[in-house]
């Protein structure tokens, strides 16, 4: 059946953040819909502030206190997560779905050993203790290629390098064999030399455990390595979505095109000015009508300022929200 191989279905998700003065409303996520199949890796790409992290946090329902999901559905294994109680969510988190955050240095509590923090979900979700717990922890440490696990487990976060910490964060994330793994900018805070290693690790973990993964990133390189499909976000909405190869070779939305064009190419001959996108991202608290990218768009039309383009089908599984697409 088609539905049983879809792990996650997000329908028209809207998440709003209340400003500090209690009056301004920032539409961080403004009508996002997508599906994630089992075993698939989906990338969410965009600049800072486009709503990609908020989407991820909304799925896990670990939003900061000022943010709220105001409408939409999130179906995980057919059940609507937004209708679940906090204690039901708690059972899912860490166990069926887990997340890796951006900066490993601040993901862990500096006052407790790394080992005690690895043990927490194992104790709480799987009820492990004593020798079984130790075995599982050692197993996890080797799964993420950390040598001398006994020594490391007794250490504190500040005593380890960023790369090693992020691997431990990875170990914690997969410790209870989740079905869904969300990685929010997993390599952004790491040194470039370590980034590739970590991506290798993610890849091997995913393949070994048949994980479904959502990777949130601003880096197309990361997306290219890991993702089957990719969705590009801007101002809280999806502007283009499709298989990774399609998007790379035939981007249709002007924003996607601009993003891809702005990646500097180390192998390129000759001199060329770095292409950047003019203007600045819009204020999500007061979005104008029409397409939010219009002020910065190279192929903008008069219609773009007035009406918001819905999603238009381009090929199989490839959609984009742009009036130019329909013109073709």
């Amino acid at each position, binding site marked *: 059946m088609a539905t049983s191989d879809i792990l996650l279905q997000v329908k028209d998700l809207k998440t709003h953040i209340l400003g500090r003065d209690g009056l301004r409303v920032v539409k961080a996520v403004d009508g996002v819909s997508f599906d994630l199949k089992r075993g698939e890796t989906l990338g969410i790409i965009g600049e800072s502030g486009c709503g990609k992290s908020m989407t991820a946090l909304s799925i*896990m329902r*670990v939003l*900061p*206190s000022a943010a709220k999901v105001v409408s939409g559905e999130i179906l995980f294994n057919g059940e609507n997560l937004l209708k679940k109680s*906090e*204690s039901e*969510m*708690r*059972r*899912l*988190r*860490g*166990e069926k779905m*887990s*997340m890796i*955050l951006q*900066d490993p240095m*601040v*993901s*862990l*509590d*500096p*006052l*407790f050993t790394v080992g005690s923090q690895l043990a*927490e*979900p194992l104790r*709480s*979700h799987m009820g492990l203790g004593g020798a079984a717990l130790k075995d599982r922890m050692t197993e996890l440490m080797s799964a993420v290629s950390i040598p001398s696990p006994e020594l490391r487990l007794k250490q*504190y976060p*500040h*005593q380890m390098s960023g790369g090693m910490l992020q691997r431990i*964060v990875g170990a*914690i994330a997969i410790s209870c064999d989740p079905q869904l793994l969300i990685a929010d900018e997993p390599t952004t805070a790491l040194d470039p030399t370590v980034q590739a290693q970590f991506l290798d690790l993610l890849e091997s973990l995913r393949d070994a455990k048949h994980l479904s993964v959502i990777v949130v990133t601003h880096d197309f390189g990361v997306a290219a390595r890991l993702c089957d499909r990719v969705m590009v976000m801007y101002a809280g909405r999806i502007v283009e979505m499709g298989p990774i190869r399609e998007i790379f070779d035939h981007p249709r939305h002007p924003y996607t095109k601009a993003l891809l064009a702005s990646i500097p190419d180390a192998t390129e001959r000759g001199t060329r000015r770095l292409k950047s996108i003019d203007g600045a991202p819009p204020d999500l608290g007061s979005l104008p009508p029409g397409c939010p990218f219009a002020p910065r768009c190279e192929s903008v039309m008069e219609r773009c300022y007035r009406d918001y383009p819905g999603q238009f089908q381009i090929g199989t599984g490839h959609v984009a929200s742009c009036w130019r697409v329909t013109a073709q």
Partner: protein
Amino acid sequence: MSRYFFSRLRLAVITILGVSLIVFVTSRMSGDVTLLLLPQDASEADIKAMQHELGLDAPYYVQYYKFLVNVAHGDFGESLRYREPAFGLIMSRLPKTLELAFASFIVSTVVGLLMGIISARMRSSWLDYFSRIFSITAQSMPSFWVGIMLILLFAVQLHWLPTSGAQGLTYFVLPVVTLALVPIASTLRITRSAMLETLDADYVKFLRVKGLSEQFIVWKHALRNALVPVIAISGLTLGFLIGGTVIVESVFAWPGLGNLMVESIFTRDYPVIQAGVGVTSVFLILLNLVVDLLFGVIDPRVRFG
């Protein structure tokens, strides 16, 4: 850890020496003690003789050295009023003051922590606003005035509690409330702000992502992190409390060290003042040393920085 301990210890010793210097210098400023000990019509020769006897004509560094030696043996001289060794007098009154100070410390820490945690968790509720108004007001009131007003209300008007003295448990209530008021306020503010910061921190987000319960997160992780700044200021809190006993004991006629100090101002009993300040300061410095060590236990970053 031991390196940390020894550096703190060295600092404590230097500070103690510095305090002794200040005490010594001020004692020499207090006027010629010989004039107090001799009758009015003493001759020049008599004065000189007495000065020689007291060692007051020796160069200052010699006097300081002798002073240190004396102090190390617990000799602060004799109380001008009571005609007993000043040190002994101080020590006999110290227990009562410590009772008051520690009772207030416990009350202020417990109440401050609890109110701070509850305020942080129930942010923007009426309880939170009340706590914040309470704490900023408490830090604005002169403590002796608070004491007087409390006596007026609870002892004089309502007759619920005794006005002064220290003969039983009820006698503790008003002095402790007066003394603990300001530390409650500062502990509350620090705890609340630390908790709020902690609860918004990324590692707490990760803890929630791990699916751990809010209770577990608050009481195991957030609290411990919030304790760090609280312990950091506990040295200051204790210093404030011990200083505060001077005033509070006066107001409530509590028979402790503070009361003695105030009395000694009026009777110009300088040896007692010296001894009191010296003993109290050393005590505080050592207490702060303990707090520093405790800090090392709680925060591993300090230990293996």
